């Protein structure tokens, strides 16, 4: 009988529990960081430059998490549709513009338009990367099935 026990004595059940705890704590950490940002912004009235580092870490983390889920098949798609990607693109641009409006005010339309342009560019980059990773991940899965 092939013994598959690893040096740490961890089996599949231990790994499953470990992964569940990590996932829970990851999501909890993200929520706590959102809470910290809101607390600093609303209660402490801190300027956004004082918590840009937290926001940056959070953003990179969430973008990477979505990318990993799409590439490794955390979400399954029959086909990778451009129309769906365009829908998500519009959603990100609209949400981004609304958040910018709330953050910087809706009175200065020039500033809002600048933020809108930044949102369109960032959303385009994100959607292109996510779309590409989804396509690559699907191709990888198809290859694995054919082997």
């Amino acid at each position, binding site marked *: *009988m*092939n013994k598959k*026990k690893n040096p740490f004595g961890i*089996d*599949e*059940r231990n790994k499953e529990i470990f992964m569940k705890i990590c996932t829970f704590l990851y999501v909890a950490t993200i929520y706590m960081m959102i809470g910290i940002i809101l607390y600093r912004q609303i209660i402490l009235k801190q300027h956004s430059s004082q918590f840009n580092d937290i926001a940056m870490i959070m953003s990179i983390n969430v973008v990477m998490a979505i990318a990993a889920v799409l590439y490794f098949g955390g979400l399954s798609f029959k086909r990778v549709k451009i129309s769906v990607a365009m829908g998500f693109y519009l959603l990100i641009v609209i949400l981004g513009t609304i958040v910018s409006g709330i953050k910087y005010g809706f009175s200065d339309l020039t500033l809002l338009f600048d933020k809108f342009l930044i949102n369109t560019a960032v959303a385009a980059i994100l959607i292109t990367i996510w779309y590409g990773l989804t396509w690559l991940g699907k191709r990888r899965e198809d290859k694995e099935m054919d082997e």
Partner: protein
Amino acid sequence: MNMKLKLARVAKNLSQEELAEEIGVTRQTIGLIEKGKYNPTLNLCVRLAKALDRTLDELFWEVDNE
């Protein structure tokens, strides 16, 4: 509760510890499978079946009237 697994293990004169050692898992995992509180992967089911000289059906298949 998975009595079939427990009976097969006892019939082979193995303790939970010995079976766990044989297939490379912890004793707790064997105990929880026997209690029906952990669903093993197919990979582990096959290792269990091989270690106990049984088929997967004999160890895990549930008939409605059971």
